[in-house]
């Protein structure tokens, strides 16, 4: 497809979409090729969503889409028209930290912090569905979120604390 064709059919290469992001309704006109990751970071300033690998292999770009933890680098924004998205910025409730955020701090589960947003969101999606997961279920749930710093141990502890299961 060359530039002339594109210019001629401009409307087809852009779409107006409406999504709910962190509880707020947002309407935007988005190029069809744009990734959700880029829309969230660059248009909405939600820089907590990180780009780690651009191929869904690390989970740093994890967001919660209609209640499910997914990789935003693998989605076109136009695919999620009408959906509801939660990023880390949307977790704290009027300044009050979500139990996962508190637990991550308390358990020492944060080192470089780059995997943290994705990790917390994956954990949130887990706890929303399964409030008292076993250790095995936690390990399984975060298996798509890579961490190079912590060895996962304190992350798992943090999720246990947040679920009320640990001391």
């Amino acid at each position: 497809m060359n530039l002339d064709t594109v210019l001629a059919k401009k409307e087809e290469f852009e779409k107006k979409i409406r999504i709910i992001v962190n509880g707020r309704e947002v309407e935007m006109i988005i190029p069809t090729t744009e990734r959700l990751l880029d829309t969230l970071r660059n248009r909405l300033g939600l820089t907590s969503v990180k780009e780690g690998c651009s191929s869904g292999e690390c989970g740093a770009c994890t967001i919660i889409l209609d209640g499910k933890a997914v990789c935003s680098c693998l989605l076109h924004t136009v695919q999620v028209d009408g959906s509801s998205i939660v990023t880390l910025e949307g977790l704290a409730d009027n300044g009050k930290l979500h139990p996962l955020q508190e637990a991550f701090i308390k358990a020492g589960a944060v080192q470089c912090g780059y995997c943290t947003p994705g990790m917390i969101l994956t954990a949130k999606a887990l706890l929303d569905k399964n409030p008292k997961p076993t250790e095995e279920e936690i390990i399984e749930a975060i298996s798509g979120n890579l961490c190079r710093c912590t060895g996962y141990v304190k992350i798992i502890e943090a999720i246990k604390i947040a679920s009320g299961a640990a001391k």
Partner: protein
Amino acid sequence: MNKKSLVYSYVRATTIENCILELSQGGVPIAGGTDLMILIRDGIISPNKLVDISKIKELKGIHEENGTISLGALTTFSELVESKLVREKIPVLYESAINMGSPLIRNVATIGGNICNASPACDSAPPLIVLGAKAKIVGNNGERRIDVEDIFKGVRKTALSKDEILHSIEVKIEGRLGASFLKLGKRNALAISVISVATSLIVENGAIKDCKIALGAVAPVPLRAKKAEEFLKGKDVSNADKVFSEASKIAMEESCPITDVRACDVYRKKMVEVYTKRSLLNSLNRAAVRA
């Protein structure tokens, strides 16, 4: 990447008819898009238009009717994992689903996408093949059904014509069937199969009445080890260990894996042998339980 920046248009199909129309005009279907996004990024495919089929209701859902389980093409791997029906009635598919990708990928990736992407390492193919699953395909010329294994024509090539879409997968439940899926990966999650094996057995009066062996990642398409199956038919299961050992050797000979960054061909072949035997033993246990 020395490639020109690609642009493509996008449309959401809300009905099957709508979808078929768009595909007939050259659109490329996108469901979850987890494979597609990478193929586009790497310049392996260059679509003019993406047709988003993910909201087409008729392609969703897992139902059981008259002894047949129907899995909508849009069924995500997470839905497969969470489905009580799948876990109880066709657990071999559960085994493959839980080991595919990661939970993040499973939340989005669909069984239809996995099949139609037709990667040699496609994880859902071996279990569906040994279940004797059928694919319901719809297009301009109406609907047709073919065996799932006949969908795969080559690396990323399927038997679907441009206007066709995979509608659903149908699995007739065979109560006595015991099946097992095993996957060899290089780590315990987010691992592409080095090889995968699915087997199914039906045992009657102490002998193998029917058996299927499907191998993944050892040929351009998921491979039925037909010679090994032939060998097994009619064999006495009291001799299972010996008989399965021989069958596995035959299956190994039937496979034609390549050497790539993940593994060498020699190793893959030997693993076909090991995993086929293990899978057959598992299938036998499950068949026995059900008998």
